[in-house]
């Protein structure tokens, strides 16, 4: 078994703990997690840091990982159908353009994500809302 060890920042809570993830490279799966000596965590982790990673293996306990774009081709009430990325992107872009053209850019609101997506993705989201859509209607769940 080829094991690689990667240092990363924990995805739960604002403490910003550093951890070492041991990965079975052939199986492409986490084996376990060890605490690293980060500035805030000093070699300790909590239960979510130690044991909160097996969601990555999609164990289908609570919900299912999303693996393929889906759209409601027939509008509201029709079933979600799996499609290729090209179609999903085109569908989304056309619909947003149509709404922007009819009701103006301030009729669209987008969220950032305070969770695993990271700063770069948030930067891109607000840039998209501001520069492409043309609105400052961008926010995230800071309040919950």
């Amino acid at each position: 078994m080829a094991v690689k060890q990667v240092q990363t920042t924990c995805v739960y809570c604002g403490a910003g703990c550093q951890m070492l993830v041991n990965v079975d490279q052939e199986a492409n799966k986490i084996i376990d997690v060890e605490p690293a000596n980060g500035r805030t965590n000093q070699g300790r982790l909590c239960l979510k840091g130690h044991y909160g990673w097996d969601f990555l293996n999609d164990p289908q306990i609570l919900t299912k990982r999303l693996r393929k774009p889906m759209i409601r081709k027939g509008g509201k009430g029709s079933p979600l159908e799996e499609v290729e990325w090209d179609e999903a992107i085109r569908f989304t872009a056309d619909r947003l353009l149509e709404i922007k053209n009819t009701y103006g850019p301030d009729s669209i609101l987008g969220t950032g994500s305070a969770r695993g997506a990271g700063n770069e993705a948030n930067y891109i989201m607000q840039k998209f809302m501001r520069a492409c859509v043309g609105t400052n209607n961008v926010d995230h769940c800071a309040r919950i």
Partner: protein
Amino acid sequence: MNYFVKGNPDLCIGCRTCMIGCVVAHEGLHIFEIDPDSYTFNPRLKVIKTARITVPVQCKHCENPACMAVCPENCIQLVENAVVINTDKCIGCKTCMMACPYGAIEMQPDSGHRVQTDGSPRMVANKCDLCINSKRGPECVRVCPTEALTLVTEEDLEKENAKKRIAAARALAEVNG
């Protein structure tokens, strides 16, 4: 002298990382791979919260264990400074559970998922074994985020006692002038 794990209520935050650590240490890392409903979540310590106290409670590994004395099948033994239950021999009679003054023994489905002749799970006595099969020592001590748990050894106790005796000697000297 037997060792034991002691929780410090001044440091415990009640997060129960120790309880998960205990399960992972005894069931093995493969539980993160298998069918989520097919493993036994049987922590051998329990975090207790009263109005003003929070601390994990687990087996004290008594020197004269009441559980060992009452077991009709002789499946409780002293192994490497620990009181350990041989679950293969356990008949699930619950006598040890009743005898333990700490409430540290519970009946749990057998970790090996063995069943009885009628298909029902085989229930066995379950308690802290100080992780004697692990090189890393008690897992609860290792994973506690606030370092609220410590393994107390014979040497630790003797050192503490020696300190206390010195303090006592000084106190006595003051009393007698």
